[in-house]
């Protein structure tokens, strides 16, 4: 007989502060290096910039000490580092555009969005005391998510930029509502799947050693597939469509542990995408630019050519193993180097070494989300945290896969790095929600049970070491607590 014990949980806030210091050094250092390389002096506003970034991060840190003291200590530093690298890279591309006589102030606006994102995360942490309250809004979240997904199709509100209709224009600002939609849909999928997972996990016919679900349970996945195909066809954006369907299939797998759902989902999506490529020219152009990127005609095709993709690849090749250094490359030669292709810009200036470090940061972030999902005790929280961690990782895969020509290019943006207010705000909200869930996952269990035995305790007995461990014979030591102590009340919802 054995039992799993963990070391006494420290809440890790001090560790977080240390990591935060390095993360801020990365962000501010990058900003300073860009200035040194492009203008040979430190940027004029370096002091204000550093103070702003440090102030915002410390503010968030203090809010967490106050409202989420047991939250994961790694999430915030990783995100701050990514955001800082993104800001410096956008500033660097601004410099390059200004050198070429183009007026450009992406960095300032992105700094504003960062500040707003961090404040929004703090507000979510303060207002949302328990993630389980979100479960009550399961179907509200579904409606909100679908509306946000469809909003760009509304005439007069939606705007078509570069062929994709995934933007809305409000008061002069363009906004990608699907970014917020993915949070709403994650809430809905988590709430929906936690109640229907048992049915969806029931076994149906077995084909080629694969346990398929029952045919009558295929309804939800077909519906999600139809919606994602609708997004692909009407909004002309493979990325949003893939993200939405991938989120559903990923969470379905998390909920049911049946690999057959993943297989069915992939078959459905690839089938649908190939069909769409036959029927619709804009989808076909994306495929052509992916498969025959180095073809002269495809490279020079004016809309939907592969010029951007190939220039990005050349940029990364120029960077090589260690990169050209901040401010030393020419990332501005790639169209949309500050948003869709920021990964190529980073690959050029920081090299493979730097790009891998950035990707490992994302890996750590997704791992923390999954670990939170394992640790949290309620089914809704598990699915929700797992789904959000999955969606961040999946978005990274879709973007980096597109830029490196592994999959067709999509219009998604790299979370935290790329220029774009909606993406930044949505991802900071995701961070706040993950912090909230990880706080309840890592909070030490309250001393279990009350007095149980009808007889009064013998005071001398309790002083005996190891007694609280029941029958531990001295090996266990009294200092650890069980990983999983399920309070009786907790499971009765």
């Amino acid at each position, binding site marked *: *007989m*054995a*039992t*799993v*014990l*963990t*070391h006494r949980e420290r809440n*890790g806030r001090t*560790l977080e502060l*240390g*990591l935060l210091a*390095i993360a801020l050094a*990365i962000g501010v*250092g*990058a900003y300073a*290096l860009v200035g*040194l*390389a492009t203008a*040979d002096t430190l940027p004029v506003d370096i002091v204000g910039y550093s103070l702003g970034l440090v102030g915002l991060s410390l503010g968030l840190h203090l809010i967490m000490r106050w409202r989420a003291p047991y939250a994961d200590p*790694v999430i915030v*530093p990783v995100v701050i580092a990514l955001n800082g690298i993104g800001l410096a890279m956008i500033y660097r591309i601004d410099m390059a555009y200004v050198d070429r006589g183009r007026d450009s102030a992406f960095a300032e606006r992105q700094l504003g969005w960062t500040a707003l994102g961090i404040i929004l995360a703090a507000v979510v942490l303060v207002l949302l005391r328990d993630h389980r309250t979100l479960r009550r809004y399961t179907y509200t979240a579904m409606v909100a998510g679908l509306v946000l997904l469809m909003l760009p199709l509304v005439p007069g509100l939606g705007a078509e930029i570069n062929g994709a209709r995934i933007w809305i224009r409000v008061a002069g600002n363009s906004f990608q509502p699907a970014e917020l939609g993915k949070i709403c849909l994650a809430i809905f999928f988590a709430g929906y799947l936690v109640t229907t997972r048992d049915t969806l996990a029931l076994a149906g016919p077995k084909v080629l050693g694969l346990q398929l679900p029952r045919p009558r349970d295929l309804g939800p996945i077909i519906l999600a597939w139809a919606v994602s195909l609708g997004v692909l066809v009407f909004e002309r954006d493979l990325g949003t469509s893939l993200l939405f369907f991938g989120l559903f299939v990923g969470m379905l797998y998390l909920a049911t542990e049946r690999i057959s759902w993943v297989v069915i989902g992939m078959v459905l999506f690839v089938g649908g995408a190939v069909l769409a490529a036959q029927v619709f020219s804009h989808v076909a152009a994306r495929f052509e630019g992916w498969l025959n990127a180095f073809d002269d005609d495809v490279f020079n095709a004016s809309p939907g050519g592969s010029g951007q993709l190939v220039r990005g690849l050349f940029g990364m090749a120029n960077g090589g193993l*260690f*990169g050209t*250094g901040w401010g030393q490359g020419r990332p501005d030669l790639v169209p949309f180097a500050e948003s869709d292709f920021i990964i190529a810009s980073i690959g050029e200036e*920081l*090299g493979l*070494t*730097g790009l891998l470090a950035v990707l*490992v*940061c994302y890996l*750590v972030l997704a*791992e923390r989300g999954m*670990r939170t999902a394992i640790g949290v005790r309620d089914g809704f929280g598990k699915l929700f945290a797992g789904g959000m961690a999955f969606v961040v990782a999946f978005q990274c895969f879709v973007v980096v896969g597109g830029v490196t020509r592994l999959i067709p290019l999509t219009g998604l943006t790299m979370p935290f790095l790329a220029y774009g207010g909606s993406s930044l705000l949505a991802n900071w909200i995701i961070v706040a929600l993950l912090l909230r869930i990880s706080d309840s996952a890592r909070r030490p269990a309250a001393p*279990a*049970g*009350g007095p*149980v*035995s*009808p*007889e009064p*305790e*013998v005071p001398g*007995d309790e002083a*005996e*070491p*190891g007694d609280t*461990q*029941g*029958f*531990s*014979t*001295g*090996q*266990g030591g009294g200092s650890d607590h069980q990983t*999983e102590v*399920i*309070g*009786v009340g907790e*499971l*009765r919802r």
Partner: protein
Amino acid sequence: MSELTITLLRLGYLVLLWAFVLSAIGVLRRDLYGTRIVNRRRPGSRKPVAASAPAAASERSAPIPRRDVGPRRLVVTAGPLRGTTLPLGSSAILIGRAASCTLVLDDDYSSSRHARVFPQDGEWLVEDLGSTNGTFLGRDKVEQPTVVRPGTPIRVGQSTLELQR
């Protein structure tokens, strides 16, 4: 700036980046190595179940004779949920696959409402709730509410549970 400074700054930045990544992973090491699995009893010291309660007591490092206090928790000793403990309060514990159970088993061999462990007159009893595969206390099938002694294994589907002090 000299070429050397630029190169040093460039490589220094990459070193800083990896220092951050590695220290973040260093914090996460506790996840991988932070748990350990210990045997609650020394191997080979398992006595027949009926005698296990006094045997365990005599094994203690401090041989203070204990008064016979009631069990304090229900422990899953085998099966997918091994290591799970439930504190015993004053209310019954429902075991089965249904989400409404106190101890939810993910086990095809257990029924949705499989068995119940409940206190009566200072003792804990186990009762089978008409399950398909039955509940076993030690080697005997539970036909009617039966008193459970601490240390006696209760088998529900693929899981084994026991009461502990």
